[in-house]
């Protein structure tokens, strides 16, 4: 039950008012784990067999909102449109 690690990136660091802004991100999660599925059985002569298969448990990440604030923790100036399938968000830099 660990929080994901989110690394967002904007297409630029400096914008003009009214300019389009796009963002993308990479999320990794400590809860992701490599698991083993163990298959144990036997035949009618009593010969046992055990076979393992590796699987990965993925803790999926969902971006809920991407907003533009006027300062850290400040007023919301605008919201960006989130596309979780493409792991991108798009919007427009506020003009005021």
């Amino acid at each position, binding site marked *: 039950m660990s929080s994901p690690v989110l690394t967002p990136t904007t297409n630029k660091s400096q914008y003009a008012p009214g300019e389009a802004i796009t963002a993308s991100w990479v999320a990794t999660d400590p809860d992701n784990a490599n698991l083993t599925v163990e298959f144990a059985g036997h035949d009618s002569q009593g010969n046992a067999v055990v076979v393992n298969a590796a699987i990965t448990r993925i803790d999926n*990440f969902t971006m809920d909102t991407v907003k533009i604030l006027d300062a850290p923790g400040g007023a919301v100036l605008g919201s960006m449109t989130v596309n979780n399938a493409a792991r991108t968000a798009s919007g427009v830099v506020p003009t005021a």
Partner: protein
Amino acid sequence: MPNYTVEFKGHDSTGNAVTVNKTISVSPTTAKPLLGICTSSDTTWASFVSAMTLPQARRTFEGGGATLPTTFATSKAKNDPAAGVMTVTSFKPNQDGGVATFPTSTIQKNWLTNYLNSWPLNHPTRLCGWHEPGDNMPGSFTFAQYKAFIVAAGQIVQQVRAARGPQFLVEWGPIWEGPYDFDSSNTGYGQTPYGPYDWSWTAAELQYIDWVGFDPYLWSANDASIERICTYDDSGHLNTQTRTTMQKFASFGKKMIIGEWGVTSNSQADSAKAAKITAAYNWMKAWNVAHPVTPIEAALYFHYNVDANVTWEVLSLPQSKAALLGILNDAKAA
């Protein structure tokens, strides 16, 4: 320049939430460039301010034939924070091989790191390395060496910015001559073997550059306007607009600084000089309205008669003085 925060909020499938903020900077919404002045010394700066008004920015130069300052307190910009003016300053590396060896010179890189670490926080500064390099290529360094210097120094600026945080307001950029660099009549220096219009930055290099600058001057009474020499080919001598200064600089996608500009008094009336000063500022405002992504953030008039037989200063010229005062006041007005 205000900073905005882009707030990313998400969660994983086991209900763990995460919020990450990323800071972006946004250009001022005003179309007016900041106007500044370059003078020869603190004394002439004070005289200018007394006779005119306090400009919004001050242009200074370090290094070259003089010893580089080791701290902000010993730099020519040391009085800018108290005066409330933005610093636009440049340095010419002159230690341990200079520009040509900067990327591999521990002495030079340590000097720049320490110099930047001495910079006051919350003081807007536009820092340039070796302005107008065309004058010195290929004699002092090659274009490739100059570009490597700009990138290496830009990396140091970014490292210091990361370490000192968002209140560290030093931004890094190059200043070229501009029109004359891209003028096919310029065969005297800089153009061979680089060739006219062979000035470029790759995307990888541009990530270490915050702004781009140039220095347009009206050296001759026959030069119609700053707009003309910047927006027509060959310093405005041609009527074509296929490889102009503004096209070139806008192609970098960065805000611009006019590090120096001037209008000569030579062979033209005070009224003509005054009109060109006012027209230049009006063109800068118009440019910014039309180009919000690549605006002219600041422009610094070269009020310094350093060039032999050319008069840039205005204090003895009533109409030019009034024109320069007028645009300085307009730039400061809301």
